[in-house]
């Protein structure tokens, strides 16, 4: 099992979710997050005074899937979330040791 974490632009969420559900992904978790990468923040003006917005709003999408699905999912997210401009986000893949479905107690790949 692998966990795929994708930090993407908020307005790309629908495109990514639709593409993933079409290819058979059955679940995902999203959260609103803020952060910066090489894109950095930007300066705004409020009543004549400048202020720095360092953390830019993004959406974090998390999926835990069987290892053999990872390559295809990553490819799909990369394609759907891409605008070609700075700040498109990142995808991280990590190994997951265990997974349990709370309702039934199933474990491992069966619980996904």
């Amino acid at each position, binding site marked *: 099992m692998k966990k795929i974490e994708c930090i993407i632009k908020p307005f790309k969420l629908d495109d990514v979710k639709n593409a993933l559900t079409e290819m058979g992904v059955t679940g995902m978790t999203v959260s609103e997050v803020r952060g910066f990468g090489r894109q950095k923040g930007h300066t705004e*003006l409020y*009543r004549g005074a400048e202020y720095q917005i360092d953390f830019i709003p993004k959406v974090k999408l998390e999926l835990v899937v069987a290892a053999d699905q990872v390559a295809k999912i990553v490819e799909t997210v990369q394609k759907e979330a891409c605008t070609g401009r700075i700040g498109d986000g990142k995808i991280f893949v990590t190994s997951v040791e265990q997974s349990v479905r709370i309702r039934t107690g199933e474990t491992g790949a069966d619980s996904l």
Partner: protein
Amino acid sequence: MKKMIYLMTVALVLLVPSLGLAEDAPVSEMSYILNTFSFLITGVLVMWMAAGFAMLESGLVRSKNVATICLKNIALFGVAGILFYLVGYNLMYAGVDGGWIGSFGIWAADDAAALAGDYSGGYAAASDWFFQMVFCGAACSVVSGCVAERIKLWSFMVFCVVLTGFIYPIQGSWVWGGGWLSEMGFTDYAGSTLVHSVGGWAALTGALILGARKGKYGKDGRVNAMPGNNIPLATIGTFILWMGWYGFNGGSVLSLGSAASAVEMSNVFVNTNTAACGGMIAAMLMVQVLYKKTDVTMALNGALAGLVSITAGPATPSLGAALLIGAVGGVLVVLAVPFFDKLKIDDVVGALSVHLVCGIWGTLAVPFTNSDASFATQAIGVVAIGAFVLVTSAVTWFIVKLIMGLRCSEEDELLGLDVTEVGLSAYPDFQKTSQ
């Protein structure tokens, strides 16, 4: 001849609003009813401005101070209503006779004459009290936004008692109570100086004595923006104030019992509206030119700047003149905000720029369209009332500071006054997601 009498009546009404109604002509019962109705309904509009101030300020403070600012705004209105009954009204209107102060005493309505069929009083006593009381509340509302996010709740309340019970009524007696300034010919139709600048001066001394919010001004003169938390609230607040202003200025005709007063009130309504439009658009353009990007909160301040500017003389200008008077206010407000920041006077919602600066401008602009007013007399009024409020409010702030402290602790300020002063967050769902 008829026109002469009308003009004289208008002049009398402008100079001595509390006494002046139609003493030279018999008042019919219908006039009496309409005058009273006007006071009541426009008074309700002015009362609603308290809601406007509450929403404007709620939107422009940071989210950790919203519940506190809501409480302060409604509480100060309560204080104003009680103090104006206990001392305020009589200090402002009873037996001023060209002097400096009215008399002490609890107010009570006396309508015996009207009930006996003599309508020369012009309106029901309580309708006048009500209309004047809501003005007193408005002056106090100006202060709360300026000193927000760092003042202790109860210290602020004590200041409100002094402002609404004594400072506001005493200076008000000089003009609307028929005191020395009105005898000199100073004119302030609905209170650019008497209400807005008074609130502004009191807020200025408060902001100076309190000091800026922690972190507002950095080293080497850097101004750190602290953006408001809710622009829709600030916007609805401005709309409410704008709406209330029809009552504020329109009701200040002080009568509706004749065609002449109906015409005057209608002119006041449209001049008030046009000045607000001018102030807002001018502020938007000015910000765009100066900073290459416009600013919602400045547009809101600009509308209020136009309204404050026209308040000293909304009856005499043409629509074009009202537009210009408002527009100058809008420009002034955009210049005043960074000016106060440069002086490190931290004004959270722009109350000084709107109410103090434009209050002064509006008062000085009256002679442009009203030949009965003179620049010199208007200036004397602005300076006299400014000096009086500066001194009395500063003394009051200092005494409150000495006795109970003015500013909350640094830790409380960082945590936010909602938690430390009232123990309640305005947006509790951010904390308790499990409910």
